[in-house]
């Protein structure tokens, strides 16, 4: 066991934990962050994605020691005004989900990438999504609609 500390959704956390435990298990089973979802536990489907220092990370494959001293953000705890909150809002406006299981992870990754400077282009963003996320219901059409709106906002924001 090791003492680790990090900021989770804006709150400072310090606790004893197995440093090799997955961030997914810590967040869900020790800290009650149930918006972070278990998926394949193989680092492929992306449903467990969280932001660590604004970078999307698959929490099933990340050990607890890797978030020590860092900032972790999840969709369910998205802070007002953050890209995470905005991406979630636009996904809801576009009804960009069917079962919704994969969507928190996808929202998280899109938010992490849009916060980058320079803002990624569409091809880069979609390629990244294909490498790190899966959706089985086929809600992609709506997600793409949401992503296009968000890319437009991000590029306009960067230009301003």
């Amino acid at each position, binding site marked *: 066991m090791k003492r680790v500390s990090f900021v989770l959704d804006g709150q400072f956390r310090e606790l004893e934990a197995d440093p090799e*435990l*997955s961030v997914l*298990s810590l967040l869900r*089973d020790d800290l*009650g*962050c*149930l*918006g*972070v*979802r*278990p*998926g*394949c*536990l*193989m680092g*492929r*489907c992306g*449903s467990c994605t969280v932001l660590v220092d604004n970078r999307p990370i698959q929490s099933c494959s990340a050990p607890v020691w890797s978030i020590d001293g860092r900032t972790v953000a*999840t*969709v*369910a705890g998205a802070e007002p005004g953050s890209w995470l909150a905005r991406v*979630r809002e636009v*996904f*809801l406006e576009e*009804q960009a*989900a*069917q*079962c*919704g*299981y*994969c*969507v*928190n992870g996808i*929202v998280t990754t899109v938010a992490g990438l849009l916060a980058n400077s320079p803002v990624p282009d569409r*091809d880069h963003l*979609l*390629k990244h*999504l*294909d490498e790190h*996320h*899966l*959706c*089985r*219901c*086929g*809600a*992609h*059409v*709506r*997600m*793409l609609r949401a992503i296009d709106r968000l890319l437009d906002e991000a590029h306009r924001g960067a230009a301003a």
Partner: protein
Amino acid sequence: MKELPANLIANPKLSQWFDIDRSHVTICSGKVELGQGIETAMAIVAASELRLDVSQISIGRVDTGHAPNEGYTAGSFSIEHGGSALRVAAAMTRELFAEAAATRLGARPEDLIVEDGRFRAPGRNEFISYGDLADSVDLDVDARSRPFPRLLGIGEIDEKTHRRDLPGKLGGGAYIQDIRLPGMLFGRVLRPHSPNLRLRELNETAVALHPGVIKVVVRNGFAGVVAKRDEQALEAVERLRQTARWEKVFDLPEDNEEQSWIDSLAVKPTIIEEPQPARLPGRRKKASFSRPYLLHASIGPTCAVAAWDEGKLTVYSHTQGVYPLRAQLARVLGFDLSDVTVIHAHGSGCYGHNGADDVALDAALLAQAVGVPVMVMWSRTDELTWSPHAAAMRVQVEATQDEQGAIIDWAYHVKSTPHLARPGMGTAPNLLAATELGFRDEVQETPAPREKTNFKIADRGGDRNARPIYALPRLSLLHSELPQGPLRSSAMRGLGAHLNVFAIESFMDELALDAGRDPLEFRLAHLQDERAVAVLKAAADLGNWQPGEAGGEGRGRGLGLARYKGTGAYYACVVTVEVDETVRLVSVHGAVDAGHVVHKDGVLNQIEGGIIQSASWTLKERAGWNEDGFSVKGWDDYPIMGFTEIPHIETRVLRNSEPSVGVGEAAAGPVAAGIGNAVAHALGVRIRTMPITRERIFKMLMEG
């Protein structure tokens, strides 16, 4: 609609459908939310008859204690059967409340106006709401004793309501995996790596000192571990796996792309339309089509939570049918029905009979062994190996054309592994752990053709959409369903429709080409169903179909058309592809006729999802086996369609006043067919074996 819907007759008390108190109107449907948006559609149906704003409707829990028994949420029947029953129940409820309101207001019930959930007499400003009347209206009334109500909501199409479950799902705590009961432990199960193996022995002591392990449960061929934490149970199961010895219970045939092993396991066909005795003179053509086993491959893990309390079992499940699951759990565990409660909880996307029912029994067995609540999740490998697959299928079709190309004879034989092996269907429990416990499994069962009351025509799953939509003068139709194939298989979105429509529509294009006729004109010449004509013309118009458009040069266009099950929604599409080394789906322009549409965005969402999932099956997916057992054990073995592969999709929703039907499965067959036809148009070579991969294209081009 003037007759009481069957689901209302089966659940006749209005109190089974509605719970209205001073501050809430709660609907109780037996149809469950699977990601398809049915809760929202049901709320819209109820609101439109009660004349309430949809935001004032709450959704009741679907469980075996309270909900009406509407069987499975399957077959695209939720709107057609469940929605129509709820609509009539809602209208009757409104009329009961109107009678109570009329007494209070001193008016005749038929004169009252109801708006925003409030009744008033014409020309008066006194309002009385459902809540005001809740204490004086008894909903414990038998619908069969009431006059058929006036339906006020028929014809209204909702274009604004957002899915009510999505804000929670884009948050935390919405899914079955998020249930946390006091004292709950976590279980994982151990299953073999090959479909023909069964557990013989295990060294339970191997994990006795493993951190967190509470108990190893071994009962005949069933084995699982209960631990304090999920990751501990998972690690312990993998350690136990190293000590497991398996025994072979049957020999596997050799898997192949054309699924010709199905022929080697031949069974006597069911005759749906008698073979014709003599051949007619004319140009004859025949072909074979096939589809491999496919996987549900939901993103979230299959999961259940079970809790025993004084000999009574409560199970949380993302099953498609709480009542059928309860019956089989009680049977396998040897309990009375009244001792088992199944509560539906939202899961990851459900496209048919997946592992949800199986894991419910897993959880019940593990919870029984430790006496406290247990959550069981399946691993990704469990999902991709042991959950029921979509059936492997093979079709042989032969047709004769006259000199003008008109089809004068059609003979069709579809063979498949089981499409309908849900819990309780046939004589076996059809729960995986039940088989491991020693219950007779599906292998030994010979399913009789099901004359399902839910269907207007006989349905055996594999023959779904085997009957062409076209008016053909002579038709022979045979169906051979193996009692069991090498892999478990059961219902997945569209069932037999995926291959049957692919085969029929591919063959229609081949026949059109042979006759030198345009595929659209050729179809229209063989169609008598006016709704099919309308939907095909609408799709052709939206997709700007050009008769005689030249194919080749790597770009092609193809048509697909079907009416799901022969009685459900019509869908037609124009698919455009570009083919170089692989097939790139460029666009799918389609039209759907689902009768009276309740929730337009819900229809569009289901059609879009159906298109993408069917395209993924058709172009990329295949499950099978090899000398090491299951050939798919992780996502790397089973690629599915991603963001960079999504085509441009446009869908025209036709409007009419025909009865509402579901759309979740309507696109599966036509899209596969449209892709197959577009690829043939692009390449000049017909691929009749799914999936249409790069390797298969190379092979076909090499063979010329």
